[in-house]
């Protein structure tokens, strides 16, 4: 019934399967290099952040949005919905329950999209390395563009992280969305291994 191009969405109840899109994510091919360069320049200068405080890291994001650090001047702004956001900030540790929502939010974001991992927890589990409820390595579940060390990273470090991300975007290396589409099966297998009650579409369009 399902060919290679569609997703089975087995997690959904049968009567709901028709309600959701079952297409696989696709790799978007780059345009001519000068256009792509211009696009990347534009993307780098209007990073809109999904306002989802997934963990402790969120506490240092608020000052960024407000008067003292004011990242609006870099063309960045918090957005309440994934549809409008291009940057997902993972604020440190992710419990399995949150990871499920993060995946959903990430998949709902439009291409191109970028992920920044804040703090130790996204690299190797951080101080919750032995907790049964938090993941250790974010890069197993989502493509991460930039890591910022700290627990938590200060706003200044986060701003420096944004600079690094912009550089990566302008260099054309920030291909997380494409990487996710290319290695979709690997990511999905990793995700499903720990999210045992997968009751959403395989890809949240």
């Amino acid at each position, binding site marked *: 019934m399902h060919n290679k191009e569609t997703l089975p969405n087995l997690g959904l109840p049968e009567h709901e399967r028709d309600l959701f899109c079952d297409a696989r994510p696709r790799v978007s091919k780059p345009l001519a290099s000068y256009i792509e360069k211009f696009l990347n320049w534009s993307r780098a200068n209007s990073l809109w952040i999904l306002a*989802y*405080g997934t963990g402790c890291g*969120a506490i*240092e994001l608020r*000052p960024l949005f*407000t008067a003292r650090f004011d990242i609006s001047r870099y063309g960045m702004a*918090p957005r309440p919905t994934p549809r409008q956001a291009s940057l997902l900030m993972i604020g440190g*540790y992710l419990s399995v329950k949150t990871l499920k*929502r993060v995946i959903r939010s990430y998949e709902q974001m439009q291409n191109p999209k970028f992920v920044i991992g804040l703090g130790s927890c996204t690299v190797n589990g951080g101080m919750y390395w032995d907790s049964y409820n938090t993941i250790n390595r974010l890069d197993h579940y989502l493509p991460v563009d930039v890591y910022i060390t700290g627990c938590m990273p200060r706003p200044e470090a986060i701003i420096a992280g944004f600079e690094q991300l912009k550089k990566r975007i302008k260099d054309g290396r920030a291909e997380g969305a494409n990487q996710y589409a290319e290695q979709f099966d690997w990511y999905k297998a990793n995700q499903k291994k720990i999210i045992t009650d997968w009751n959403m579409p395989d890809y949240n369009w």
Partner: protein
Amino acid sequence: MKPYSDRGKFPERTENGNVIDLDSGKFVKLWQGPQHPGVTGNMSLEVIISGDEVVDLTTHVGYLHRAFEKLIERRLYIQSFPLVCRICVPEPDTNEYGYAAAVEELAGIQIPEKAAWLRTLTLEMSRLTSFLMWLGGQAGAFGLGTIPQWCLAHRDYMLDLFEELSGGRVYHMYIVPGGVRDDLPRGFARRLEDVLQKIEQVMSDIELALFSNAVFKRRAVGLGIITRDMIDEYGIVGPNARAAGIARDLRKDQPYLIYDKLSFEPVTADFSDAYTRTLVRYREMEQSIDLIRQIMAGIPEKGAIHVRPPNVLHWKIPAGETYVKAESTRGEYGYYLVSDGTAYPRRVHVRGPSYTHAVVLLEHLALNTNIADLPGLMVSLHTYPPEIER
């Protein structure tokens, strides 16, 4: 102005509770959060609305569950003090104090007087810091964008002071079992006073811009009324209870550290709705500023800041159990510690006030409110989800 509670009870109730038939077309189920700017922290509300009126609400938590209590059980006593402050991010010091005091009590350690003063100082500073953040959130939840800008900028000045004192902006890890880690830096008093004055100035602006604001008044007055008879039934503590006229404040009722040497009276009001609760907390911020000044005036010049525990790598604490609590910005915050005489705690239970405020209380108060006021209501209870799931 009609308080919301005067609206007719809808939907119809039977002995078994509300009659909510989702297929009837009268109701819509909405998920608010966890990815939603209108919820505090990472939690979610399962809301059922009819029109724009909330007819049922269920709180869902667990998105921030890191199993602190489990992790503490497999860490040495000293190893947990960096862990506990992560339970409540905006106000870590209460956790540090609660944990350290519980360990000290069972270990029979008496902390030096100066350490007690320094601990009180950080507790009050973090209270002010936490309230600043909350006040921004409260105003923001009602659509007032300017006040969060002011509050968070001034909170940041407080964080600068914390950084100077403890070496950390957000997680101070300053209060350790046995005392505190360092003395006040040189010139700290002056810089602290500067910041306090700045905060006082911005607070006078906030008073005009928030408490005399027609929008805020219109939306907050009568929202989420807590009556006096609900207090014990729901286990309501802190400003939420004080706003209803119950003068309960652990700092006064069961003084810890050096609170008995400071002069203050619990702030109370007589009608606990979102507006009054905001006002009570605002007065407590003023009170905190006053307390910080009292502490800075009374803090001993010299003296030990730390009592060395036995070698912390194999520090065994005599078997026993205790419960130590402190008044956080949200109310009674406690640590229940059970030691079985080994180098590892048998059990640590963290009691956070949000446990009741954000679950049973919110579920009750949300009924018959307007969906647009839900964020405002939630913030007015001052809840932090990590206290619930830990």
